[in-house]
């Protein structure tokens, strides 16, 4: 037992090692370097942020000049380079961070800035939408139109035949009414129709009642037009960076304004909304983006976000149980938040939805001493079965309602 365990852990270590070294390797990729270090102050062709737009910068300045500036702009300025001083003056005398990159990293970065990838995303999404094809309602509509046409054609043919036979003709509506009457004249048909209507009404009622309090797709407007797509998607910020208490607490935690300021002390202008939305953070915390200082004695105002996922008070839910112990990804419940400009509730968040997951999810017991002895006994008891959450009492009332 111990042997396998240590073998496992060794394997695990190797896996980690490779992932880690791959990351290191990827660091030499210019794009990575740019995204990690530069993107908070610069764009390439996206306009001026804190620092200048870097589109065509490699053409404007030679590589040596850029290297000196990037490695330590303050030293460079001190050396008396006229261009460097001019830029420093232009940008409110805010010195750029000194990076001191390795030569090979610097080359990769400059190569990236020279040939930035062309933004193709927009095009791609449009084609993707076209590929989706027709929605089911459109199909239904087309079928309905087709059927109506069919009835119309058949009625016309029938009328033509009747004119030939000198019989009185019927209009389309008369035909429908007469046929309907004939159909309903049979009591068996009435029963069938009545039953069908009853079923439909019941189904509708049931669905409506079951939908009470279910707020899937709830997508309220927030006080700040914060885009998860830009932060978590495009910039790849880990969810737990802002929602840090998800790992340790029952709440995932809405980040406090000081967490926003970790980045937005420097990033004063956003991709979608410019300075307007970011200014709201500054208004809350009391920050002057021009002088880059916190205002003394400012009366801070909390940001009143609209809560999207509202569990009722009688249901106890703990994020850390699911994130830290259960090792679930945030997206498994919250959907692809990294693709949402405005976040919406993706899942049902009903008790049935919770329970269903508890029935299907296997408990991740390996490597956690809490479970060790329990696991032994459970393996015996549920020989050959998966040990899912419900086998550990995950369906019991008292585990969530107290």
């Amino acid at each position, binding site marked *: 037992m111990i042997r396998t365990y240590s073998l496992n852990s060794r394997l695990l270590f190797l896996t980690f090692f490779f992932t880690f070294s791959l990351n290191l390797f990827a660091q030499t990729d210019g794009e990575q370097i740019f995204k990690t270090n530069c993107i908070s102050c610069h764009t390439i062709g996206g306009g001026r942020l804190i620092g200048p737009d870097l589109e065509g910068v490699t053409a404007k300045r030679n590589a040596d000049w850029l290297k000196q500036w990037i490695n330590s702009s303050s030293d460079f300025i001190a050396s008396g380079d006229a261009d460097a001083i001019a830029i420093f003056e232009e940008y409110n005398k805010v010195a750029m961070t000194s990076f001191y990159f390795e030569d090979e990293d610097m080359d990769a970065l400059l190569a990236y800035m020279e040939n930035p990838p062309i933004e193709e995303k927009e095009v791609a999404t449009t084609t993707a939408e076209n590929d989706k094809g027709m929605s089911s309602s459109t199909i239904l509509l087309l079928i309905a139109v087709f059927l109506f046409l069919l009835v119309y054609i058949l009625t016309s043919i029938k009328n033509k035949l009747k004119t030939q036979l000198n019989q009185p003709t019927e209009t389309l509506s008369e035909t429908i009414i007469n046929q309907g009457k004939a159909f309903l004249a049979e009591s068996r048909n009435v029963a069938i129709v009545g039953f069908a209507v009853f079923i439909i009404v019941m189904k509708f009622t049931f669905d409506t009642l079951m939908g009470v309090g279910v707020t899937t797709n709830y997508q309220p407007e927030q006080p700040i037009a914060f885009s998860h797509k830009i932060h978590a998607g495009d910039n790849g910020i880990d969810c737990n960076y802002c929602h840090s208490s998800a790992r340790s607490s029952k709440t995932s935690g809405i980040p406090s304004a000081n*967490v926003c300021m970790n980045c937005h002390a420097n990033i004063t202008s956003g991709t979608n909304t410019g300075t307007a939305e970011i200014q709201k953070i500054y208004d809350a915390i009391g920050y002057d983006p021009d002088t880059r200082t916190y205002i003394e004695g400012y009366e801070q105002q909390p940001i009143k976000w609209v809560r999207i996922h509202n569990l009722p008070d009688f249901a106890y839910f703990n994020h850390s149980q699911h994130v830290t112990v259960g090792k679930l990804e945030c997206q498994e419940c919250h959907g692809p938040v990294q693709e949402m400009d405005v976040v919406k509730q993706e899942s049902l968040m009903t008790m049935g939805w919770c329970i269903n997951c508890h029935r299907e999810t296997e408990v991740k017991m390996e490597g956690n001493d809490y479970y060790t002895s329990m696991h032994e006994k459970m393996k015996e008891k549920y020989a050959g079965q998966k040990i899912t959450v419900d086998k550990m009492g995950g369906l019991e009332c008292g585990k969530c309602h107290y």
Partner: protein
Amino acid sequence: MTKAKKYWKGLAELNNDPIVEKLRQNEFVEEIPVDEFLGDKELSTTSTSRRDFLKFLGFSTAAATLAACETPINKAIPYVIKPEEITPGVANYYATTMYDGHDYASVLVKTREGRPIKIDANKSATNARIQASVLSLYDSSRLKNPMKGGVDTDWSTTDAEIIVKLNEIKSGGGKIAILSSTIISPSTTQLIADFSAAYGNVTHVQMDAVSYSGMLDANEASFGVRVLPTYHFDKAEVIVSFGADFLGNWLNADYAKQYVTARNPNSGKMAKHYQVESALSLTGSNADDRIQIKPSEQAGLLSNLYSALNGGTADSRIAKMANDLANNAGKSIVVCNSNDAEVQTLVNAINNTLGNYENTLSLSNPSYLRQGNDTEVSALIEEMNAGKIAALITYNVNPSYTLLDADGYNAGLKKVGLTIATSLYNDESAAKMMYACPDNHYLESWGDANPSNGVYTLMQPTISPLFKGRQFQESLMVWVGKSDYHTYLQNTYSSIDWNKSVHDGYFTQNQSAATVSSFTASVPSFDVVKADGIEFEMYEKISMGDGTQANNPWLQELPDPLSRACWDNYLTMSAATARDLGITNWNVSNGALNGNMVNITVNGTTLNNVPVMIQPGQAVGTIAMAVGYGRTAAGKCGDGIGFNAFALGNGTATIEVVGGEYEFAATQLHHTMMGREIVKETTLADFIKDPYSGNHQVTYATHNGKQPADKVTLWDKFDHSTGHFWNMSIDLTSCIGCSACVISCHAENNVPVVGKEEVRKSRDMHWIRIDRYFSSDMTKELSEAEKVSAIDMYAEMEEPSANPETVFQPVMCQHCSNAPCETVCPVAATSHGNEGQNHMAYNRCVGTRYCANNCPYKVRRFNWFQYSDNDKFDFNMNDDHGKMVLNPDVVVRSRGVMEKCSMCIQKIQEVKLDAKKAGKKVRDEDAQTACSSACPTNAIVFGDVNDDTHKIQALKKEERAYKLLEHLNTDPSVFYQTKIRNKA
């Protein structure tokens, strides 16, 4: 034949009582309060017609339906700048010190998002009042603003005026007096010295509401030190207490823990405990031998005991005790509650003769918890009345309420030029003073304490001041032109690691104590006299103490462990005395208890219409009443409850029976077990011979021979073999009935307070109750021997003995494996968990109450009303401040649902989660319920029986372990340990 038969509904009908005829006409016995629930007088004068009404009704229903379609928008408001140590949803714990002038404890405070919500023990045990003190923090009746002459003002004005006046007094050479509770804070003592230095003629007088002055004086006379000894009950083999309630209210909450350490039956040795008292105290109810005396006999008996130990003949009542003491010299303790220095000198002499000093009690390592001086207080009142005091500053005291000579004090107050009260409340005393300065609660304050020699505990704020209060120390500093008590406090202890000490809440440091001289006093001698007449004695209730926290609804609703009554104080009286006076207690139709009332006069003070509670165990010819009640300026919930026994003082009473009935709110109406084995008990000698003694299994005769209940069953055994199996063991030998667990449960589980009227209707909501049973003179064995008929036997069994043996039994939901409640719930709102608990899903409950009716333990509680946000239940849950004490992890139950003990499932889930996150097993010490963590004597032990590192596993296998109402085969997860008494 049958026509001739007539059935009477009761004696009243047989006697042709006119009330019967009247009742027969009415369908409902009590008038239905239609006016109350439809009660708007404007309705009868309104011009709205029925038609209009229906129109409005239809419209508003439609409007409400439409409005309901809109989902309410919930806001999530994060911190702007999150404090580093706070993670929303995760509790923080801070070590601090609880001291309110009466109770002292080193405690651990649980805070959530910056709000203290629960008190746990840190370095010392807690009692009910200490546990409840967290609610007193959120009391909206606290003094919120500085007041001048009853009008709100602000600090700058107050300070400026006070400083000017103090300086005037200083220049005029006037005398300033500071009257405070016992000060155990060395830095405060230092500050008072600074204040004295600044203003010259300053005198500091300390007073205790319940005075220990006699004992302090006696120690000064006997040993030359005016301090109290520290006691070590754990080292004693014979404990003799003359009236001292050391398990409940006497001195220090830690003694209970020591006491049970000395009385562990599994070690084969239990300290023998004698209690000599008149009123039945909590300590007396735990004694092996209890001797009933009149208070006037105390001095004589002590004198007799002293002479017996020195070769004289002992009084027959105490001969055995004297013998035991003599045989355990150096291993015994004699304590006494008397406030008479001469009597206490006798006690000192006895302990000295026995060589107990520095063995079981120590004066060289003294306790500083009580330093009040009655002589100085009297002198101060005299000086005040003589106009010799120019300014009086009070701190943490309520002399107008607690002093016997309150009138003298009040009169003297009028002759003092400048009177300043620093107080949490605008109480009886503060309201009479010129300035009332709001003090901070201990949870809002910095501070230190020196409870005994060399031991220091620190106080740190766990919340910003809720109101515009300022702690006394800070005020003193401001008045001498300084500020920042926090730094001052730190500078007091420059040699310690400050951060570590604040973190731990305590530190030890060498401290020089006054030199104790050898016993020199002349031993007074008293004759054993038995005075005629009824003697009155004050006592403290475990819930109310000296009444400091009278406005705390948890404490008001905490049933007294002995009388089981709450929201009241009353005269306790023995059945024999009551019979002589023609006083009775009786139960009315709904079971509630009523009693007669009397006028009582003691020391020239009369209290009118005081109810009498017949209390088994009360000595004949004596009566007693609890202090702490009869407050008039405590706040909305403590005012006007009971009578002020402080005003009477001990002494001979004159009783006059008056008409009228008094309605008590008692939570237990039965006194005895009626011969059933609810609490199993045996004696130490029998237990040593046979560990199963007193705990023989119930068996049923079957075709397979006699079988225990769990073998005769329809149920399939619940499989608890995998995962946790949470169990609880309650040792009835260690349970002293102190009720700390009840308050701890209140705080942890958001248990509502329902008020006296509802308790009277048996609708109290406590999840844990402490049943108290008295022994009866009649037993089944006796009835067989004396051939008493069954009817007579049961009738006599109902009557408790005059000096009964008492047992306490905490009962909460037993979490049965074969739970009777689960099978009858029509909506499956209560169900069994695989970890041994019986779950209760409030949101599923529809309130049929079948479960409560089917529960043999009667532990389920029904929410007859909405107890939160309801003006009819104007307690902490109907108050914005009071609600801050609620535990955010536990639902506040709404009207119409059943609730009960959950075995603190929120705590279990939390420790499990913490263990999972840490990748470790759940540790025994972490697995605690609110009751088990609060228990000062470790009588309640909780843990996982499937884990062999948990103590509970061994406890379940003990010979003493038994399950309550075992014959029903409910197979509870809670089990009890037989009570063992150390008597023949």
